[in-house]
């Protein structure tokens, strides 16, 4: 006698932005088994990077691996190629690149918070966060010329400079945003229905985080101190006021809080960047052809993004290996679903901020 219900979630589902198929085995509404298919968005970018595109074009192609963290993709690829070319960017370029990455982190985290709220059935909060998020989208659009795909970073520098008007706009909008974020922190902490929905739900313990190699906000919410920004020396993060945000409970609430506090931290860093922007060229010539093997890690909004690039002195690269944060987080995600209620599943899923187009490439 079979008493389990099978519930599909995806590949098309209103709570999903991206196609991922879950098949939940449920007893009543309690999930006892999960089966997932994550390969819907596989387009073959890794192969195309070595067969169809020259190394200078690849930066734009890998940005299309993921729309949310496009900037980190092109950044890590560019860094890797620059390492192979033996080129070190000047401080202004570094700062501008960091500014874009941090702005991207803010908008990505806000989207995740909004999406989690929407999936928890809190439409007003979704609208509130989406409305506030437009502040940061305006800044991004003004700086890079596009709202989502920035195409801001190219080998040897960045494509656009920061004019004084843009600095003023950024300052203004960041100031407005930081007030809104403070209000949000209060709301997330005190709302009774949100605490029913978030606290103690979808818990990833510290032990599990270690075992399943969790990363990014997922790990930091469980208390695992890992952040590529603190583990690499490509960018001067410490000098700009970076602090690692840690929570301990590992539930949805903790993940939301890690994101909220990281936004606060990122806003502070962005302000530091535009205040202390060094003077220099924004585009320098990086000559030669990539030769050898280089490894780059960058902290994307979802965690560690890993690039391994190998070239043999030609226009075409030999291998571009992309390891994205969600790809590593999937085993941990599966673990969290077991024992949760189906009613919470969309919210839990959104709180992981999964990026399927990253995962499947």
């Amino acid at each position: 006698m079979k008493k389990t219900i099978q519930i599909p979630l995806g590949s098309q589902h209103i709570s999903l932005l991206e196609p991922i198929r879950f098949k939940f085995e449920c007893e009543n509404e309690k999930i006892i088994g999960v089966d997932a298919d994550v390969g819907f968005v596989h387009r073959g970018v890794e192969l195309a990077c070595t067969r169809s595109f020259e190394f200078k074009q690849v930066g734009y192609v890998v940005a299309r691996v993921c729309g949310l963290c496009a900037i980190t993709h092109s950044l890590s690829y560019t860094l890797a190629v620059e390492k192979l070319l033996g080129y070190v960017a000047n401080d202004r370029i570094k700062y501008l690149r960091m500014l874009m990455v941090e702005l991207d982190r803010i908008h990505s985290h806000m989207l995740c918070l909004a999406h989690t709220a929407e999936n928890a059935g809190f439409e007003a909060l979704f609208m509130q966060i989406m409305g506030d998020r437009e502040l940061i989208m305006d800044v991004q659009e003004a700086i890079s010329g596009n709202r989502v795909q920035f195409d801001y970073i190219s080998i040897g520098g960045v494509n656009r400079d920061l004019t004084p008007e843009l600095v003023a706009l950024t300052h203004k909008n960041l100031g407005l945003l930081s007030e809104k974020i403070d209000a949000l922190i209060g709301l997330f902490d005190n709302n009774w229905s949100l605490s029913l929905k978030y606290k103690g739900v979808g818990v990833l313990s510290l032990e599990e985080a270690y075992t399943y190699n969790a990363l990014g906000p997922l790990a930091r919410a469980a208390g695992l101190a890992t952040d590529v920004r603190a583990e690499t020396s490509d960018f001067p993060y410490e000098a700009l006021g970076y602090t690692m945000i840690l929570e301990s409970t590992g539930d949805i609430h903790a993940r939301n809080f890690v994101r909220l506090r990281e936004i606060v931290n990122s806003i502070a860093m962005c302000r530091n960047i535009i205040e202390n922007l060094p003077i220099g060229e924004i585009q320098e010539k990086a000559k030669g052809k990539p030769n050898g093997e280089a490894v780059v890690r960058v902290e994307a909004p979802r965690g560690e993004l890993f690039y391994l690039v190998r070239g043999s002195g030609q226009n075409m690269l030999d291998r571009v290996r992309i390891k994205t944060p969600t790809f590593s987080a999937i085993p941990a995600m599966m673990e969290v679903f077991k024992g949760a209620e189906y009613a919470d599943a969309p919210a839990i899923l959104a709180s992981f901020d999964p990026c399927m187009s990253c995962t499947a490439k």
Partner: protein
Amino acid sequence: MKKIETTLSTLLRDIGAFYIPKLWHFLSVNGIDLGEGKIELQWIFSAYGVKDEIVIYYVLSDYNTPVPSLVSLIPSAIMGEREIVDMFGLTVDGAESGLYLDEDSRTHPLRGES
């Protein structure tokens, strides 16, 4: 970045001797096709809280030799192993194909000149 060469038969022992979940973060399994049926497999680790510490264990292998699975040691390795099964057509015990590619679509895109 430190690269350590090992062999498929001693891989599990080598990694087991050095991998502690609280100290090391397992990044990924990676394959690089070297042409002529040769393939370089890499297991990449980074250290928590230490700057720029990456260790890569690598093996030069061919398409037919079965690859040992790390799942007993590192549960999350399953994703990377399934990926190389799909993309290179290697055999890893315990890892099924079908992560990215369907049975009737083109097989093993990253393998050589296929």
